């Protein structure tokens, strides 16, 4: 039997930040020893400064600092919301570090607040300020001795041309075998080579996934 969701925290950025963290996502004095689920939501904003891949172009990702932070299985689906078609690819099936090290890191087919590419999901506020935003939810499951998994869903995103609605569904997933960390964990949102804009919002919840504690 699962327990109710517990609200862990909320952040609204008062200044630009390259990284947004939620620390101590479970109690240090009562380490997690049962299955846990976390839900993290971001309503992020950025500016489109680069319409093509160029030197130091921004990209975005999120990850945790569990014992096994290297996700050895990652799967990513890229949806072309202009045409309604979808294609998919596998990031990595290796247990080695690499692109799978950070969940949902994708330098080119950015999953969020992105740049370039007629098929990439994002939303403009207007042509004048070029502000973009997107709402994304990540579900992170942690099972000691079994492993961790993450899924990402997109909400309220439209295509680069605003010609069609976004694909509100799971767009990426990844998993890792092995023992999950019993230590207090941290969840990270990372804007590489750029920042999340002032006003971006972040929420987090936790839930024990069974009664045995």
């Amino acid at each position, binding site marked *: 039997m699962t327990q109710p969701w517990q609200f862990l925290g909320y952040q609204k950025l008062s*200044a630009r930040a*390259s*990284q*947004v963290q939620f620390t101590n996502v479970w109690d240090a004095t009562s380490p997690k020893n049962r299955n846990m689920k976390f839900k993290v939501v971001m309503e992020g904003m950025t500016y489109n400064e680069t319409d093509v891949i160029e030197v130091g*172009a921004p990209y975005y990702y999120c990850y945790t600092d569990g014992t096994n932070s290297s996700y050895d299985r990652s799967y990513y689906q890229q949806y072309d919301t202009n045409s309604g078609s979808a294609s998919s690819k596998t990031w990595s099936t290796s247990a080695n570090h690499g*692109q799978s090290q950070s969940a949902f890191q994708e*330098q*080119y087919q950015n999953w969020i607040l992105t740049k370039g590419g007629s098929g990439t999901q994002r939303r403009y506020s207007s042509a004048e300020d070029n502000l973009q935003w997107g709402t994304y939810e990540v579900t992170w499951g942690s099972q000691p001795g079994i492993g961790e998994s993450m899924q990402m869903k997109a909400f309220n995103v439209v295509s680069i041309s605003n010609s069609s609605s976004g694909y509100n569904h799971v767009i990426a997933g990844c998993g890792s075998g092995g023992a999950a960390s019993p230590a207090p964990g941290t969840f990270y949102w990372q804007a590489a080579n750029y920042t999340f804009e002032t006003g971006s919002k972040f929420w987090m919840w936790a839930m024990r996934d069974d009664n045995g504690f």
Partner: protein
Amino acid sequence: MSNYMVSEHDCATGITTEREFTAEEMEEMRAGQQEAVKQAEIENAQNVVANAKLATTREKFLGMGLTQEEVDLIVPADQEVHPMEALVE
């Protein structure tokens, strides 16, 4: 960007703080970016090989008398190859 900022919410205390990256965090981030470039190089190499096979397949089908439209329906589009010079800082 010289000063990378972190917004940190401690779920145990409910306190949110804003601070600059530590030297260790800067190092981790740079290492991650280098890793991403390395991964991109591997992916590009794989895609170049895949695209060559797709091109050969298209030629074979065209040689069999299929139209370009029919071939396009059968053979997937090329994999994207990213411009690597754009990724090196």
